[in-house]
């Protein structure tokens, strides 16, 4: 673990893997909840956790680097189930990249338990980790100018669901009617870092309108 100072009041804690980042994130949330850590933002990411709004970053840095993390993050969340139609326009491309049929893509995806590694890109957009690394896929060479809200996509090691229509380069394999973000709801975000997620298939597999 390495703690890099960021400006005068923040710390970027870097670890070796996504799993370690999740464990560190859980530990920092635990410390904040028990009152031993005072911080404005705790922002987990792929290999790091950013702590922003610290009174004494240097002291926390030396404390943290002496900390032994629990090997696996505790399972503190219930599983959020997202109904999904595996009807995305890139389903055939993903099937080709994985070397399986389209129905098998749906089966593999729906039988995986995901965990929100971090959020970003847009409010409520979670980067869901859980697929084995052999299923990593590249982004599309040319991003789409408009990806519809509810699109379920893959990029690199992650799965994500677009909370609202936006440009995007992820490989789209399906669609969900779940509302990922509603600022009038409490909490506004359906998914937050650490949330466990399962996709529950509904309807037939294959792109809309395909023969």
């Amino acid at each position, binding site marked *: 673990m390495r703690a*890099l*100072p*960021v*400006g*005068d009041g*923040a710390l*970027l804690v870097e670890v070796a893997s996504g799993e370690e980042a999740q464990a560190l994130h859980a530990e920092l949330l635990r410390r904040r909840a028990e009152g031993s850590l005072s911080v*404005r*933002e*705790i*922002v*987990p*990411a*792929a*290999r*790091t*956790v*950013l702590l*922003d*709004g610290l009174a004494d970053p240097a002291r926390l840095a030396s404390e943290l680097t002496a900390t032994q993390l629990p090997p696996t993050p505790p399972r503190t969340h219930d599983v959020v189930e997202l109904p999904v139609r595996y009807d995305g326009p890139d389903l055939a491309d993903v099937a080709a990249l994985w070397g399986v049929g389209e129905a098998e893509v749906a089966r593999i995806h729906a039988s995986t338990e995901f965990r929100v590694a*971090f*959020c*970003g*890109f*847009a*409010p*409520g*957009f979670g*980067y869901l980790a859980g697929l084995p690394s052999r299923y990593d896929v590249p982004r599309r060479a040319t991003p789409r100018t408009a990806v519809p809200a509810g699109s379920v996509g893959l990029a690199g090691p992650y799965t994500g669901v677009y909370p*609202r229509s936006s440009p995007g380069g992820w490989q789209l394999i399906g669609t969900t009617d779940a509302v990922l973000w509603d*600022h009038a709801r409490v909490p*506004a*975000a359906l998914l*937050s*870092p650490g949330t466990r997620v399962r996709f529950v298939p509904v309807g037939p597999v294959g792109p809309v309108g395909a023969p």
Partner: protein
Amino acid sequence: MTDRALSVVRAGALTTVQDRGRPGHAHLGVPHSGALDGPAAELANRLVGNRPEAAVLETTLNGCAVRPRSTVTVAVAGAPCRVTVDGRPVAWGAPVRVPAGALLDVGAAVSGVRSYVAVSGGVAVEPVLCSRSTDLLSGLGPPPLTDGTVLPLGSPEVPHARVDVAPQPAPPAELVLRVTAGPRDDWFTAEAVRTFTSRVYRVSSASNRIGLRTEGPALERARSGELPSEGMVLGAVQVPPDGRPVVFLADHPTTGGYPVIAVVRAADLPAAAQAVPGTPVRFVAVRRR
């Protein structure tokens, strides 16, 4: 609708509602947002008797014009500009009474970029995650003003300040930004790090509420490959593949994958909000406190 409201007659190039933003939600991908020149927004609020966190209007370069439905006190701070009520010049940087139905025109910035218009009672649009700020990156908060928009106002709490004019810093002729190194300065060559803190950049016209973009010598990376996405702070100086530093402002993304060579001191960011395109920028290395 109640008569505690403002009708927008001329929205200007980009006028948004801003307060102190919505901190504490970065882990959900929600940007901080809020007034770019916070001290100017708070001064305008104090002048009209509002709490410092009341929502104000933030204009961009060419001001705006509004018509209150009831008599209000307003104050314009930030970028200096001509202010008129029904065509008659009134004070900038001081409380001004605007009668019901009169036209308040906040003119083009004489210098600087963003003027702040506080109205007694504050702009009372519905808050989102405890803030009324327009966030141009994520689309949270009210949309930018358009001609004909009607904005509700809150009720005034205390009388306005009894001052003639309040002192304010002049917009910068040269923008000096103090920076502390890192966290990813090791992604750049030693030459690039020297270039960054010794050469002069200029504010690019592509700057916006998300970031102050610069033109100047490109900064060369010492390593290839991609940095996995990581959390970003206000004032982070991110260097995209074109090598030109971008200073993250209030609507910046909460995570990003380009290396951050340094971070600007928070106290220097209000001046960055007022630097017009073409303004020389110097990044000055300082030690961490």
